[in-house]
């Protein structure tokens, strides 16, 4: 099983890797102020542990995971918390979110760190350490890693563990650089993952436009039994489901996860942070970020989380003239931020300053000519033009019949469309509309259930009262003569009182 199993579709895109992958990773300068979002991951927002005015140490937990799918947040440097408040964050919605704002004291005083020998700990203890170290997937999705490292709940043993170093998006080179420079540490982290998941085989997928990274990883893998698998440079080979197909021939079910077919996948950067967390007791307080595009010195920086984008741009020689868009992530799937004052989070792998030269020129949108170029390009094997027709006509149920939710929004269809239709935008719109409708439906269903419950409760109370009355009546007739008016008033007021307060508050909270 050493062959590759190409996925359908995909693209040869522009690459633009050499702009930023020539120099080693440098540490970015310590900023005066760090704005650390409490939600840097998929799942519930972390509970703030620090208050304004409090002093914190580097690596001190300032946000506690809230629930199973959540992650801890730590102070990236020592200093004073000056506020816990809503601040602009890098999110496609443009909405602010809760952040801990820290003024650094420049001393970089660490909290007490403790290295552990993971082989001697119970697996659940290792997972807990990673969870409280705030380890999440650094490939961009930022899913809490501890959840993926728990093999219980999956009946069958894990077949394949995949380390994702494909880095298929144009311009981004942070994974390339860390594989070149930190291969041994990444492999050490991979050992921890393999120890927890006990897979039958461990494969490392890297696109073949990164020969230096491949060489470094091959050298680091010597004697481990882990196999480096160079994969053809074809976007989106780094997308999880596509990489799993490419390396194992297994197709992840439409509404399932790779683990459903016995595969689990981690990003190379995640493996590195796992290594730091176990060997040094260091939580995730920094990550490697590619700063590239229309800046004077494109490069990779190791950046403290919470550092504003603008400082990284300044350290990269500043913008060149004519920057029109600042993109977090790659040009295919990244999103444009409105303001460069927002902070780096665990999901920030790249800042791409884009001028007209890097961007697609605005060209007139023509009608779809049904050429089917999108069908040939779609890595999810969808019929993008049918989805487009239905999304445009607001026939959302038909769009779902054509598997709208299998769309990974990779952008291949838009890239090849000769009519320049903003196809992905139509799919996002349709998905959002469907989600909104579902939410409405759930709300209506909840209201219906509540109404039903209320009617039942009133009926029950009435019967209980009647029963009580019947019991009391023969026993103490004399008292009853005095009491009925009171009881009648009580019964009356119970009916008139607003229905129990619990439903109203719940509705308010559910609408997030």
């Amino acid at each position, binding site marked *: 099983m050493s062959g590759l199993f190409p996925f359908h579709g995909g693209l040869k895109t522009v690459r633009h890797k050499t702009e930023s992958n020539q120099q080693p990773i440098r540490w970015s300068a310590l900023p005066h102020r760090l704005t650390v979002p409490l939600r840097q991951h998929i799942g519930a927002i972390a509970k703030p542990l620090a208050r304004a005015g409090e002093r914190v140490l580097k690596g001190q937990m300032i946000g506690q995971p809230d629930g199973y799918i959540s992650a801890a947040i730590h102070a990236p440097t020592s200093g004073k918390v000056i506020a816990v408040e809503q601040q602009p964050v890098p999110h496609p919605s443009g909405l602010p979110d809760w952040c801990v704002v820290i003024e650094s004291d420049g001393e970089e005083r660490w909290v007490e760190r403790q290295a552990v020998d993971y082989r001697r700990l119970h697996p659940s203890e290792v997972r807990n350490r990673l969870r409280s170290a705030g380890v999440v997937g650094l490939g961009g999705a930022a899913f809490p890693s501890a959840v993926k490292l728990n093999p219980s709940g999956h009946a069958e043993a894990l077949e394949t563990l995949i380390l994702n170093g494909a880095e298929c998006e144009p311009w981004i080179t942070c994974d390339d650089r860390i594989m070149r420079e930190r291969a041994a540490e990444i492999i050490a982290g991979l050992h921890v993952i393999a120890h927890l998941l006990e897979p039958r085989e461990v494969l490392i997928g890297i696109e073949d436009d990164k020969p230096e990274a491949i060489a470094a990883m091959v050298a680091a893998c010597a004697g481990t039994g882990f196999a480096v698998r160079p994969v053809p440079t074809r976007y989106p080979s780094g997308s999880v489901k596509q990489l799993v197909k490419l390396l194992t021939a297994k197709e992840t079910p439409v509404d399932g996860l790779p683990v459903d077919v016995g595969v689990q996948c981690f990003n190379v950067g995640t493996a590195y942070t796992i290594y730091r967390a176990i060997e040094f007791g260091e939580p995730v307080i920094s990550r490697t970020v590619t700063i590239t595009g229309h800046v004077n010195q494109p490069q990779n920086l190791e950046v403290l989380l919470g550092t504003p984008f603008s400082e990284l741009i300044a350290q990269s020689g500043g913008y060149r003239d004519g920057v029109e*868009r600042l*993109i977090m992530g790659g040009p295919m799937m990244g999103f444009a931020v409105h303001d460069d004052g927002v902070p780096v989070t665990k999901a920030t792998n790249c800042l791409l300053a884009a001028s007209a030269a890097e961007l697609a020129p605005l060209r007139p949108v023509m*009608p779809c000519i049904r050429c089917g*170029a999108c069908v040939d390009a779609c890595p999810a094997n969808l019929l993008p033009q049918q989805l487009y027709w239905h999304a445009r006509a607001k026939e959302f149920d038909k769009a779902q019949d054509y*598997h709208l939710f299998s769309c990974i929004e990779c952008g291949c269809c838009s890239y090849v469309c000769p009519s320049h239709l903003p196809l992905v935008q139509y799919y996002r719109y349709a998905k959002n509309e469907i989600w909104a409708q579902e939410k409405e439906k759930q709300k209506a269903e909840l209201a219906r259930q509540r109404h039903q419950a209320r009617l039942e409760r009133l009926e029950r109370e009435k019967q209980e009262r009647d029963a009580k009355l019947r019991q009391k009546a023969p026993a103490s007739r004399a008292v009853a003569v005095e009491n009925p008016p009171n009881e009648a008033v009580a019964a009356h007021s119970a009916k008139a009182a607003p229905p129990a307060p619990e439903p109203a508050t719940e509705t308010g909270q559910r609408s997030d």
Partner: protein
Amino acid sequence: MHFKTLTSPHVLGETSVGQVMRRVLYAMVPGATALIWFFGWGVLVNLAVATVVALMAEAAMLAVRNKPIATHLADYSAVVTAWLLAVALPPLAPWWMTVIGVLSAIVVAKHLYGGLGYNPFNPAMIGYVVLLISFPREMSSWLIPQGIGQAHALSLIETLQAIFNGLLPDRLAADALTGATPLDALRTQLGLGLAVADIRNSPVFGIVAGSGWEWAASGFLAGGLWLIYTRVAAWQIPAGLLSGLAVISTIFYLIDPQRYAPPWFHLWSGAAIFGAFFIATDPVTASTTPRGRLLYGAGVGVLTYIIRSFGGYPDGVAFAVLLMNIAAPTIDLYTQPKVFGARRG
């Protein structure tokens, strides 16, 4: 600093509708050149007249429909329609026939059905069929292929005279110039009880099919293969069409080689190759799923053979394409590809 926020993807490929259509035009050059060589200046005049009329009709319809005229004229789709129709017309067809054909294609079949991307039927074939039904005699009188430099050939001036004034030079009688197409000849003489082998000895036939015709077909084959190489045309449609035609003609040929022409004759005759790569591949009106395109192509191939062999018209590609246009949406519905990760079966 503040920036524009537009959604991903932020980079796009270099392709455009205009580029796709221009490539179709380039790909027609070898075949059209062969036609001009063997059938004279008339082919070129038809191409020119059709192009001018198509652009004027397109501009007028865009103006009526309130669409950006310059943008849509630059997509070259009207020129493609004009060329597809023009090379299908008899080289000395009177100018007004070309005009009627082009107007039927652009005004009725394209714009009245919603314009680029919305027309259910192939516009060029609608134009062709309107002419074929309305003027059957003119549409079936083709020139005898003889090449531009040869004794009987018409000069450019004489060609213009013939097309615009209906006048032929005194030195030539109409009979000396025009004759039946090879497919027509085959049909007529089969009707007279002759065997295929004997008919094939007539001078209208060349190495595998009609003399001259086979060169034009080869030119269109070369251009068509380039279209597939550049991914302008989907390979499934020509593959389906040619194999559909080959399979059914082989079956009949094996049953009775005296009454049915061999498969290579069918493949290289009439509009089979031209239709396979240039007509049936019109993306707007064809099937769009990979398997659907194979089926669609095969359907055109089989229908072409049936109409050629048993119908009333010498060639069946135009009717076959239009019939399959009707079927395309249904084919698409039942040939959806298996979505990534969907259960098989």
